[in-house]
């Protein structure tokens, strides 16, 4: 039995650019975009925006600094614990 497909909605179009569209919806979305040039233009811009945002975040955040490595944070904790221990009043 062939399931009756629901009409294409905004969610499908977002899913298409996010790579989350189930394969069986692909043809319906293509058909929709072929006859809806406004939606095609708008979602092309969203797709560009998505890529631009990824690039901007990559540039904004940059490589992980040393102070955020697990090894460094552990090291600092050990030093802190050691200092606290030695700052305790001795009996």
């Amino acid at each position: 039995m062939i399931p009756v497909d629901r009409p294409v909605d905004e969610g499908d179009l977002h899913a298409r650019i996010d790579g989350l569209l189930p394969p069986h919806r692909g043809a319906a979305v293509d058909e929709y975009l072929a006859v809806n040039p406004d939606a095609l233009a708008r979602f092309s811009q969203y797709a560009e925006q998505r890529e631009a945002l990824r690039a901007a975040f990559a540039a904004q955040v940059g490589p992980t600094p040393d102070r955020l490595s697990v090894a460094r944070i552990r090291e600092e904790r050990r030093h802190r614990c050691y200092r606290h221990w030695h700052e305790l009043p001795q009996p």
Partner: protein
Amino acid sequence: MSWLLGYGEAMPDRAVLIEPHIPGLRRFASALLRGGRHSADDLVQDCLERALSGWHLQGRGRCAGMALHNSLQSISERPAASTGRGGHDALLEVAEAELPGVEGGQNSALEHRDLLRGFAALPEERRLVLVLIGVEDLSYAEAARMLGVPVGTVMSRLSRGRERLRHLMSGEVKSDQRGRRAALTRVQ
């Protein structure tokens, strides 16, 4: 006592669980705070310190990621962390000098800065959805779980966020072109 021998294996090293999520946490913190890189990294450091002391990561992979993101978000909600939540002007420093070796590095740095300014003008709930889905590649259901809202809410935030940012950026282009035209007429 095989259960005892297996104990070490059953407890994966936290570093292995945590480390892969650090770049994503930094981007998430940056989207959350709209602030400079340093305040975002301070928040991530705070979150990692908690994760490495006494706090038990439940599950692996994306579950660990979810616990870290939730912890980061709850730390950012404390009054002490709110100093990083500045207005729109203290925004997102994309240092142009930090894009070496990129062809047209200066130009793309400026484009990034403009886009991030537009992004920072969006409400927090839309910023988080845009970054979780568009940058971190979470599915709609995963983003909904992480933010504790229904999938429909995620979809509507995504849709509104993208449309608003598109408007903001097209306004940016127009005003930029107007500015250039004005500059040209001044020259003539």
